[in-house]
């Protein structure tokens, strides 16, 4: 039985078709599994392996390398505070310490109601609005403890915050078309053109 729900299974197969080799779909399919489940569970990795013609051990080996894949459940909102150099100079460590107190969890922890997971991040590339905070990979631009608490308050009470989808949904924009011309078709077409022009040249 498929772990992916029918709609997700169909999307998974469309993703695999975009790549010259199915294994290349490993990261996109792990993202897709997180979109469905909120994290990357063992059953999903078995199915990603089947779709990419690898083994679930290989999928786990790959997925565990990357920071964005959570192999254990996380909160609806994954809150990341950057403390790298530009944010460090702007008080990133202090904001992170505030976030720990405010959320009541240490870095890496998830709140009891599974709403928030707190992470310390490497540079997220928003260094002119430091210290940088992301929620589910969206820049929220809350650089002060007060603004941070205000945002957390909203996320605590609101069921839906339109500009921050729940954890796992990375891109709300999907590809609208499949491949129009496979690489091998292009290669064959060009070979034909080249052969025809060399025939012309020699004839």
């Amino acid at each position, binding site marked *: 039985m498929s772990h992916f729900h029918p709609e997700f299974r169909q999307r998974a197969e469309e993703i695999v078709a*975009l*790549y*010259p*080799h199915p*294994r*290349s*779909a*490993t*990261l*996109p399919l*792990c*993202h897709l599994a997180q979109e469905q489940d909120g994290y990357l569970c063992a059953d999903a990795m078995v199915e990603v392996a089947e779709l*990419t013609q*690898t083994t679930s051990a290989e999928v786990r*080996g*790959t997925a565990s*390398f*990357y*920071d*964005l*894949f959570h192999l254990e459940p996380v909160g609806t909102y994954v809150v990341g505070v950057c*403390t*790298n*150099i*530009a944010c*460090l*100079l702007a008080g990133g460590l202090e904001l992170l310490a505030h976030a720990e107190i405010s959320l009541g969890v240490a870095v890496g922890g998830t709140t009891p109601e599974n709403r928030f997971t707190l992470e310390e*991040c*490497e*540079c*997220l*590339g*928003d*260094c*002119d609005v*430091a210290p940088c905070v*992301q929620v*589910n*990979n*969206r*820049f929220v631009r809350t650089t002060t403890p007060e603004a941070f608490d205000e945002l957390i308050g909203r996320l605590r009470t609101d069921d839906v915050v339109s500009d921050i989808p729940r954890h796992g949904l*990375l*891109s*709300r*924009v*999907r*590809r*609208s*078309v499949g*491949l*129009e*011309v496979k*690489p*091998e078709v*292009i*290669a*064959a*077409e*060009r*070979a034909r053109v080249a052969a025809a022009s060399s025939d012309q040249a020699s004839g």
Partner: protein
Amino acid sequence: MAKLDAPQIVTSRVGLDGGHTLARYLETGGYEALKKALAMTPGAVAEEVDAASLLGRGGAGFPAGRKWSMLKKDPVTYLVVNGDESEPATFKDRLLMEKDPHQLVEGVVISAWALQVTTAFIFVRGEFALGLERVQTAVNDAYAHGALGRDIFGSGFSLDVVVHAGAGAYICGDETALLETLEGKRGFPRIKPPFYPAAIGLYGQPTVVNNVETLSNIPWIVLNGGRAFAALGKGRSTGTRLFALSGRVRRPGVYEIEMVHNTFRDLIYDPALGGGTTDDVAIKAVIPGGASSPWFGPELLDVALGQDEVAEHGSMLGSGSVVVIGANDCAVRAAWRLTKFFRHETCGQCTPCREGAGWLERILHRIETGGGRLEDIDLLLDVCDNIVPGLGWPPQQTTICPLGPSIPSSITSAISMCKDEFLAHIEHGGCTSG
């Protein structure tokens, strides 16, 4: 005096409302360069890029035209766009992907035509959710507009572009690690040789890997000619370049300015650029080109923003990020945090990098938090010397990729420029600067 009269080559739409949409792109001359390029031969397009002397904007500064010319002829070849921008304090590619994604897509199609590749991949850093959405939207709209897919603008040239999201790993910015991750594996940089993906790249096929900013320059170069681009800047550093300015400045941000004709002082102090330091604080140090680059002291502020000019002074322009460290900022803490970054991001293949990064981070942490010993300074330098024998610049390569040899930069810079701070930390039981 800053020289600010150069055209905005890649940031002309950044300030526009809806500059990321197809409608606004077409209104402002979008996809005209592609039409022009498709009427030229692929070789003629490549010659323009060669004439521009465009240096890669990712960090290594390899000439784009030369990279292109190295692409081995083969029926199946690939173009991969490196949008995995993760160098600390670098945020210019994200700006281009969010604010002008069609410019990137147009640059990709023109480059694919010049190189005659069969498929292109745009790799976008996973943490850039908005960038991903904007680039995917641009690709979708470009297909609908006939600028992608089969028979582009009736030229007979076909190209598919796949947007691929990363998943959080700095090392994937290394082009061979990027190819590994695109193949669905851990982001391990590949053992050299082969030295260049242009010979053996994605799935073993010849592949060109170019940075987002590099390719965003291509439409302008095609429209205005490579010579017009090369007329800007000086020496090997032609054109304009994006500089991401952060740290203790009044106006942090991304600025597109002409290469070489401006200095670090211009970038930091010009009212139209950085606008001076926060609270007019004195500058302790400037990180001139990302976490991997050795620091500049205030005496080097008049060095020109050019590749060779910065290299002559023992550092590198790298990714184009400039971080200003103020007189009251703790150098030990800065070096510790940068080293912690490398500790987190080392892929773990090579011993000097994997073990060295952790060891150095632990030593720096104990100095910062009050457990430092007098011999720790020599120990830091000794461990650094094991990663980069001789501690020279450019660093010796003891590892598969340049990440390992980048680790000592901040440590040796901090010790040579601010040794008294290290001694004070050790004497007074830790950091006293707050």
